[in-house]
């Protein structure tokens, strides 16, 4: 299968890894015991809701993208790892899979629902505490009502009753005789479950702690099988590009929420300025108020000042400003300072750290306290810089690597030390 048209496509889940490279790596991996495709729909990055929107509006295309990847890498198993809050989307996916089974496009046993494991001592579903960066953010509406409230689409996603209780555990040694078997796996209900190796651990019924890499999932993923893990949006773009429906370079779905008139999911070219996205797509800032600060690509990309709204939303440009495009989720604030937003993000990370590695387990909590403290008193012998560096270099996964960015952005763009010298 020729996948050259995926040249322009980078993973849309946050890290931006080239999709074609990943697909080929799984294709080239040894397949003595089969291969697995996983669609990462554990959309947990605060401010992001494009994946849920995609299932609401383009469910068939996403699944077709998975089928194409399965064909390319010769996989016969597939799972959609779905955020537990997305119960309406779950029903839509089941309906879509049933239709495709009837059409002979998927293996007959497809469409089952399994349960992945989460953290002990934590409810199965998030109560959205910590995600609530703006009061009644678009994300909250979305989880509650589905996408029609956001973008005025007429398609109703709710209303279907839950067809079955999830099964546990996942069937590891099942034989798939014909076609591609696609099932749903309900996520463990934690932020870190969206990290691909923690996701795999959770599917295996273990505590969702990220694995050490290498080996990468492309060679040793679910049950040690070569595994392709892509974001929902990545599969959708792959399908559009491979089917020829979209002839140009892949664009991005921007989730825009917060203090804007029309929060929602908007498709725009990578490199559109944030100001254009907010004004031309999302209907401008609420009540024409001043923007106090904004987030370019989900909570993990930190906050930026209003003076940078004219910067292009692409990785090269955002890297200059110390951040990245991430999940392309813009959150606009008009009533909270950068420090207030950063405190919430850091507290969220401290709560969501899996507690496996020391730098993230202790670092996130200590920095959350440091930011929240009125005097910004730093109680440790090692300097703030040494601690930030230790988290960036010494953590196991992306959560620990990027959490220091929250503090670094405050210092870079908001004169944190000058304003808040203790």
């Amino acid at each position, binding site marked *: 299968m020729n996948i050259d048209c995926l040249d322009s496509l980078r993973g849309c889940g946050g890290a931006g890894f080239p999709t074609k490279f990943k697909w080929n790596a799984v294709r080239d991996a040894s397949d003595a015991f089969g291969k697995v495709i996983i669609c990462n729909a554990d959309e947990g990055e605060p401010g992001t809701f494009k994946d849920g929107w995609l299932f609401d509006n383009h469910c068939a295309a996403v699944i077709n993208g998975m089928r194409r990847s399965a064909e390319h890498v010769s996989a016969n198993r597939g799972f959609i790892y779905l955020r537990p809050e997305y119960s309406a989307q779950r029903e839509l996916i089941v309906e879509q899979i049933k239709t495709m089974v009837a059409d002979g496009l998927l293996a007959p046993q497809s469409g089952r629902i399994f349960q992945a494991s989460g*953290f*002990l*001592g*934590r409810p199965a579903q998030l109560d959205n505490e910590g995600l609530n960066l703006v009061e009644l953010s678009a994300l909250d509406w979305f989880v509650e009502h589905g996408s029609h409230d956001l973008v005025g689409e007429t398609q109703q996603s709710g209303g279907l009753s839950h067809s079955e209780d999830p099964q546990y555990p996942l069937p590891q040694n099942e034989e798939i005789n014909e076609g591609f078997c696609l099932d749903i796996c309900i996520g463990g209900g*934690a932020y870190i479950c969206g990290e691909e190796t923690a996701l795999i651990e959770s599917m295996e019924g273990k*505590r969702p702690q990220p694995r*050490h890499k290498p080996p990468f999932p492309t060679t040793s993923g679910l049950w040690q099988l070569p595994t392709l893990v892509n974001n929902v949006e990545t599969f959708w773009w792959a399908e559009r590009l491979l089917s020829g429906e979209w002839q140009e370079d892949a664009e991005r779905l921007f989730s825009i929420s917060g203090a804007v008139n029309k929060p929602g999911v908007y498709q725009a070219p990578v490199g559109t300025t944030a100001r254009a996205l907010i004004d031309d797509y999302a209907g401008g800032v609420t009540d024409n108020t001043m923007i106090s600060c904004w987030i370019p690509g989900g909570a993990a990309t930190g906050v930026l000042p209003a003076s940078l709204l004219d910067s292009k939303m692409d990785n090269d440009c955002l890297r200059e400003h110390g951040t990245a495009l991430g999940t392309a989720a813009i959150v606009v604030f008009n009533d909270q300072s950068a420090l207030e937003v950063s405190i919430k993000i850091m507290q969220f990370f*401290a*709560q*969501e*750290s*899996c*507690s*496996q*590695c*020391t*730098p993230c*387990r*202790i*670092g*996130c*909590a*200590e920095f959350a306290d440091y930011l929240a403290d009125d005097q910004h008193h730093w109680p*440790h*012998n*090692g300097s703030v810089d*040494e*601690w930030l*560096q*230790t988290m*960036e*270099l*010494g*953590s*196991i996964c992306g959560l620990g690597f990027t959490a220091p960015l929250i503090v670094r952005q405050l210092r870079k763009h908001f004169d944190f030390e000058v304003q808040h010298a203790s």
Partner: protein
Amino acid sequence: MPANTLMINGKDVEVLQGESLLDACTKIGINIPTACHDSRLEAYGGCRTCLVDLDGAPRPVPACKTFTSPGMKVETSGVVLDTVRTTVDEMLACSSRAAIETWTDANRFIGYDPAQCIMCDRCVRYCDEIMQCNALEHVGQGSEAFIQPTQGESFLDTSCELCGGCVGTCPTEALYSKQSLEVFDKQSGEAPTTTRTVCNYCGVGCIIDIETQGNTVIDIDAQTGVGPNDGHLCSKGRFAWQFINHPDRLTSPLIRNYDNGELEETSWENALAVAAQKLSAVKQQYGADGIAFLASSRCTNEDVYALQKLARSVIGTNSVHSCAAT
């Protein structure tokens, strides 16, 4: 097994395939500090104290969890690496923010102090990988995480065998022996001494370290890599030592006075004479095979040898057995 040659701090090192960077460093005498590492368990790589620089890796890698391959180039020290390791040590000293202060469970042996816990998971992994009991679990997330008996039950209601291996593997004082805490006299100022000996509860011959303060036993532990037990002990070996200083412990033989039915203290000479007289009487009335000898598993080999000699050559019976034989 094929060997790998790699370079550590500019020096060629030959190691076996499957060995970790930590093994390789240890082999050439480079001491890498560890906290979550226990050679009996699968590598965890969580504490980050053993980070080393590996040529080509984007970040320092944990030596315990990184397996050697030919041509690797490793540096175990450097300006940035040293800072990171010092900072990790400082982080490990930050105490946990767990919501619990200790376990309120009814077991008399194993206690927990979350303030000392560094979430290295050694206890949980020991209980899973070695004992296969899964009586401990890692609960919660971030700095609020802690360890508890499975499902928050008392240890006595889990599959715990009270082997105390979790206490043995704990690198801090987070898991501790409740008995030791009771007996240890902090006020006296007398430093404990450690004596290495062999456990005499059964015939395995576990090597144990008995800690004493004066004439009082305050703890028993075992060292990884020593003896047939490799640091493992059973519940009796690790915890059943309070009898040694117990006031009820017998310190002289007792003979029953058949006039009043009471047991009365006597001398060893008298006790042995009475036993010899009674055994002779039985042998005279029922023959030698009317007597059988059972040796306690707590007897040493020499004791058991002497007993069977008594049975065969003095009494004349082959009915002799030791419960350590099973």
